[in-house]
């Protein structure tokens, strides 16, 4: 058990770095490029009860310091996921943990995915993606505290596995949403999903993205993610998975100090698949060089009483 391992959600995590949902498929492709089973784990592409076709192209485009995507939650659906994707995960990942990202347009749809998966092998628990339109409620689950509470309560009733709720950033007080999840029985939080964004092709005078708008990810959102993670961490006692713009150990450590026990890497994987490995190694080095003991001793230890600036001269 190394300095970066932790016990969370009832199991041992050999490292803090997971691959983020939607950026690593169901794991197989990256297994050719990086030693997947040496990582903390991965979160699958969203799984919905029925297969989804997804949105028309362009589905992605670059933005300053990041990217915009609107995949439309294209996925093979619950049944094909169990048949075609889970077996690979079970067979190939021993030490790395798997969370299944779950989506739906209604509480029942979410519950059906969880119920349909719960007896299968090959994964640890669920990451609930609440950045979906709530067909019943007209908003998103992630921006409506009541709907969110109902959703999490219902899922709590369906499973004893860990439930991690992935929060949406475009709310004025993410702490309140974090508390709703905690009270409804969630085991952890993922902060954050992408920011709503849009790009316009000024020559054609049309949106670049086929679905008009999409989600902004990548380094551009790093300071927002760190802040929202800190807010969520100070609002609840739940373990938190920090997400948003991470591409280096230093980025990841900002999330850890803000309150995250684990982190996820998404967009940076596209830029360099090995970034996930580099982040893990960099965190190990940081702990070693500073004689910190282990990673869990760093979680949430940012000293907000004192700013970094001291004195008048060069630092």
């Amino acid at each position, binding site marked *: 058990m190394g300095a970066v391992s932790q016990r969370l959600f009832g199991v041992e995590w050999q490292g803090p770095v997971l691959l983020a949902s*939607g*950026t*690593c*498929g169901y794991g197989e*492709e*990256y297994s*050719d*490029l990086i030693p997947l089973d040496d990582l903390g784990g991965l979160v699958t*592409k969203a799984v919905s009860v029925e297969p989804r*076709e*997804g949105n*028309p*192209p*362009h*589905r*992605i*485009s*670059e933005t*300053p*310091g*990041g*990217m915009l*995507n609107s*995949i439309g939650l*294209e996925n093979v659906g619950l049944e094909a996921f169990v048949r075609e994707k889970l077996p690979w995960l079970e067979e190939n990942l021993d030490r790395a943990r798997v969370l299944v990202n779950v989506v739906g347009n209604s509480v029942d749809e979410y519950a059906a995915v969880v119920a349909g998966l719960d007896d299968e092998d090959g994964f640890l628990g669920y990451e609930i993606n609440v950045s979906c339109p709530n067909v019943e409620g007209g908003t998103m689950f992630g921006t409506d505290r009541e709907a969110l509470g109902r959703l999490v309560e219902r899922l709590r009733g369906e499973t004893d596995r860990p439930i991690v709720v992935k929060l949406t950033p475009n709310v004025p007080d993410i702490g309140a949403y974090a508390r709703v999840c905690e009270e409804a029985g969630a085991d952890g939080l993922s902060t954050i999903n992408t920011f709503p964004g849009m790009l316009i092709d000024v020559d054609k005078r049309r949106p670049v993205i086929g679905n008009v708008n999409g989600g902004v990810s*990548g*380094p551009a959102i790093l300071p927002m993610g760190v802040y929202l993670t800190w807010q969520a961490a100070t609002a609840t006692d739940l373990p938190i998975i920090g997400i948003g713009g991470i*591409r*280096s150990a230093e980025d990841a450590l900002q999330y850890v100090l803000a309150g995250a026990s684990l982190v996820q890497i998404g*967009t*940076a*994987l*596209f*830029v*360099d*698949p*090995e*970034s996930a490995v*580099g982040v893990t190694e960099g965190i190990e080095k940081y702990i070693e060089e500073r004689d910190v003991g282990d990673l869990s001793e760093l979680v949430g230890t940012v000293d907000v009483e004192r700013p970094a600036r001291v004195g008048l001269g060069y630092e």
Partner: protein
Amino acid sequence: MTATTATGGGSAEPIPLRENRATPRRHWAPVVRNREVAEATWWLEVDAPEIAAASRPGQFLMIGFGVENTGAPFIPRPFSVGWRSPEGVIGLLVRAFGAGTRRLGALDPGDDVLLLGPLGSAFRPEPGRPSLCVAGGVGLAPFLFLAPEFRDRGHEVRLLYGERTGARVFDPDLIRELTRGDVEIWTEDGEAGSRGLVVEGIDLSDDPILMGCGPTPMLQALARTAFEEEIPLQVSVEEHMGCGIGTCQGCVVPAAGGGWMKACTRGPVFEARELQWEL
């Protein structure tokens, strides 16, 4: 996973679009040479022997600058393998489009780029029939690589290459040198080769199969011809890409039967009949 040999001679086996693909490799590669070869167009050579050896005509690379860089291009950009030397140098034909391609054009020898490849499907010759390759603009790139490879395997290749203007035409002598064969050039302004659209040069008298890479209107013209004349057509398509390896689902193109196919793993080379066309 089987890597193809770098340049084999004479074998006439068919190379299926998506079979026997090599596992992609990710590594930093130094720029060996970079020259502006036509208006806002560069011939960029990078030293990447492993990827070169595993590449097949039609396949592409994702080219990026690593995670420390957050300026454009941040997300890697896809480029067709445009050539390979026996020593493992890969040639890329890059045309200025936006910030990313301009940055590639400004690279100097010794600068490093982060490569991921080879990726995607490859063009496949049909034994006994000539491959009639129709290139528009930088759609020339995959055929610069294809022509000598196919010829070495004993397949006949004819190359048509069109540009809007003469100023944009990639040096015909260099094309002949790289492809070890001839090229027929068309320009809309008539400043180089024949005046007109490249598709006007299509001659079906020797019962060729068609291969195309270029702008949408050109691909559409090819598809109309192929469907009308019932000739096989393989096209290399373009779409914005994120991962290049099939995980992000960002790069989809419409499938003939409805739904979507990933350009990065099912493509970029498709049989025209697999795709949904707006003709």
